[in-house]
């Protein structure tokens, strides 16, 4: 019985697997100082940024790709076979959305991105990143009114260079890790946000990333600065077309919260996961880190990770300011042959800093799901508190769930709690639901959503609905 559903649905397509036919401005695959100079020149960057990129590249050359500690395995990546820049061709700077290539518009419409003016009511401002360049930014005027800077990264370099220069690499240094160094050398575009003191951003800011060109790596860079007493909620969604080869996505996200500021960062990641045999799919090697620099500042990460062949990411919080708060809410789902090694780091430095970690891992089919989390309470972090909860849900007999919690407590006044559970959707649960009239798919969705509820309720409303749907789609046919 379950097998029929499984097979039918395992054949169902990745719904987002269309490609868009637009003329691309690409450079030949390969990586060298010349390639970096070309990227920098195409973007008309200042010298200091080119030097910064080259510095990162030289660091990267000395580093080793990390595959000894994460519980993921994949064939070696040929970094010379990757194309480091692909942009839709355009003749001049776009003045309004109407000038956008209709093909790109249609792609975004398929993705359901609210680019249209009519969507203003939805209160979402979108900075859409199509491969390497931000093609359109909406709601600029409304945001400008509040003094909020929300720009494609390359534009921010031109318009607010001093802010970029001050904070770029201040949370994730160039040499932080192999993929962060690579990103620092070749990053193409991304989003930049600055919220001035005391301003509560009146809408959710949203970026939609999509990888279109083949053999293209996507290396976007996001930098968000919340000045004193400000608040911003940022949403990030990701999709990619179906391709047989693997594509690399190595992003860096840096968040900075000053005194009494709050940043809420939500991700729904649905990169192409590869097919049932493990062919194709995105390698999602991402470094995300937030710095609670100010007193009473707060950074909250919420992620729903359903896509990618391999996910390797640990959105983290450096809790420097006294009484600052870090949160990490995560749902990671691995089906097909997906592998995820994800979690967080909470580094408590300031006094009375608090952190909460809620991680829900779901493994189905031949998926492998690992939670890896570090809670470090440094010497001076008097009265620091952490609560961690890591739950795993297994669907079927061929998947795996693993939990690797690391605790380093150097202050005797700290309080650290850790809870972990592993459960399995059994035939008995499914039969019980069916005996009450529910279909198998409804039953699985219900059980999974029940399992993830604690995390989903942290997402903004529209995103929560989309995430629920995604979980359902990703699990279709997962039960055998």
């Amino acid at each position, binding site marked *: 019985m379950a097998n029929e559903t499984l097979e039918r649905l395992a054949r169902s397509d990745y719904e987002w697997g269309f490609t868009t036919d637009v003329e691309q401005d690409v450079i030949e695959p390969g990586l060298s100082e010349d390639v970096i100079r070309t990227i920098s020149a195409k973007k008309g960057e200042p010298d200091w940024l080119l030097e910064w990129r080259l510095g990162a590249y030289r660091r990267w050359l000395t580093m080793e790709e990390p595959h000894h500690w994460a519980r993921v395995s994949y064939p070696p990546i040929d970094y010379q076979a990757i194309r480091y820049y692909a942009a839709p061709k355009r003749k001049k700077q776009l003045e309004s959305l109407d000038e956008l290539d209709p093909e790109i518009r249609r792609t975004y419409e398929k993705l359901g991105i609210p680019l249209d003016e009519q969507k203003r009511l939805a209160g979402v401002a979108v900075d859409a990143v199509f491969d390497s360049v931000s093609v359109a930014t909406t709601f600029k005027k409304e945001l400008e009114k509040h003094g909020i800077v929300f720009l494609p990264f390359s534009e921010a370099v031109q318009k607010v260079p001093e802010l970029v220069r001050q904070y770029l690499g201040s949370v994730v240094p160039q040499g932080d890790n192999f993929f962060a160094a690579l990103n620092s050398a070749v990053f193409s575009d991304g989003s930049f946000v600055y919220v001035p003191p005391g301003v509560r951003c009146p809408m959710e800011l949203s970026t939609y990333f999509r990888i279109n060109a083949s053999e293209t790596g996507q290396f976007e860079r996001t930098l968000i600065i919340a000045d004193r007493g400000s608040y911003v909620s940022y949403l990030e969604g990701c999709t990619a077309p179906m391709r047989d080869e693997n594509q690399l996505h190595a992003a860096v996200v840096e968040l900075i919260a000053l005194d009494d500021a709050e940043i809420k960062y939500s991700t729904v990641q649905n990169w192409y996961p590869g097919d049932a045999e493990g062919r194709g799919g995105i390698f999602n090697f991402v470094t995300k880190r937030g710095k609670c620099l100010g007193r009473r500042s707060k950074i909250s990460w919420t992620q729903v990770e359903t896509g990618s062949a391999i996910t390797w990411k640990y959105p983290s919080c450096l809790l420097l300011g006294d009484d600052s708060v870090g949160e990490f809410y995560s749902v990671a789902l691995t089906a097909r042959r997906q592998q995820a090694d994800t979690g967080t780091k909470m580094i408590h430095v300031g006094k009375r800093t608090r952190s909460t970690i809620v991680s829900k891992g779901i493994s189905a089919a031949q998926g492998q799901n690992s939670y890896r989390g570090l809670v470090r309470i440094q010497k001076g972090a008097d009265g620091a508190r952490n609560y961690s909860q890591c739950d795993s849900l297994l669907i079927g007999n061929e998947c795996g769930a693993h939990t690797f919690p690391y605790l380093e407590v150097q202050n005797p006044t700290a309080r650290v709690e850790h809870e972990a559970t592993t459960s399995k959707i059994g*035939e008995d649960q499914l*039969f*019980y*639901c*069916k005996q*009450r*009239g529910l*279909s198998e798919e409804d039953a699985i969705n219900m059980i999974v959503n*029940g399992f993830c*509820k604690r995390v989903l309720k942290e997402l903004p409303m529209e995103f929560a609905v989309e995430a629920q749907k995604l979980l359902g789609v990703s699990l279709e046919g997962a039960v055998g």
Partner: protein
Amino acid sequence: MSVPMLEIRDLHVSVADQPVLKGLDLVLERGEVAAVMGPNGSGKSTLANVIAGKPGYEVTRGEVLFEGRDLLAMAPEVRAREGVFLAFQYPVEVPGVGNMYFLKQAVNAVRAHRGLEELDAMEFLSLVREKMKLVEMPEELAKRGVNEGFSGGEKKRNEVLQMALLEPKLCVLDETDSGLDIDALRVVAGGVNALRDPARSMLVITHYQRLLEYVVPDRVHVLAGGRIVRSGGKELARELEERGYGWVQQEAGA
């Protein structure tokens, strides 16, 4: 004479290649409450699970007709929507899924199948409150996860509550009395009795006649060695309680 609610003919069932039911015949009329009693390992729970369509039970011969239709050809969820209800001996926990939400999904799945409109939140709430009184269930239990942290008695009450909400035609109660103290037994039996109806049939599966003091059956069937070896009126239950199962098994050569 109308079509029986349930008609089982020469049913043979194996579990993991071991024959458990070996030629079981049973007829349950519309509105009839019949008890199926038998010693441990006689196949009582197998009978309940086969009727509900639980995976892992292989029917090797015979047929089961529900209102004259082939029940075995229906998927478990279709059987449920058609009006077959199993009160589980060991109800399963579904953590994180609110009991109320679960009940509403179930009621609406069954209603949709019957061509009725879905109940909205308010309508459902008043319906569930009314039915909860039937089994004296505290409201607090409706807010918890499905059977999550329920005591044995609370789980059984929850089963009867679901039965009341889904308004099935055929109720199969699998050892509903097991693990209940006398007060809980009285409450659960009261709920079951309130659901007796000329249009509803019940198959009450039990090892002891204790439950049958409260839910008085129209007929009693004795299951031994995978077959019905004796049938009679309610007095048969008392006789079994006094004399044990040995004599029926001997008489039947089972």
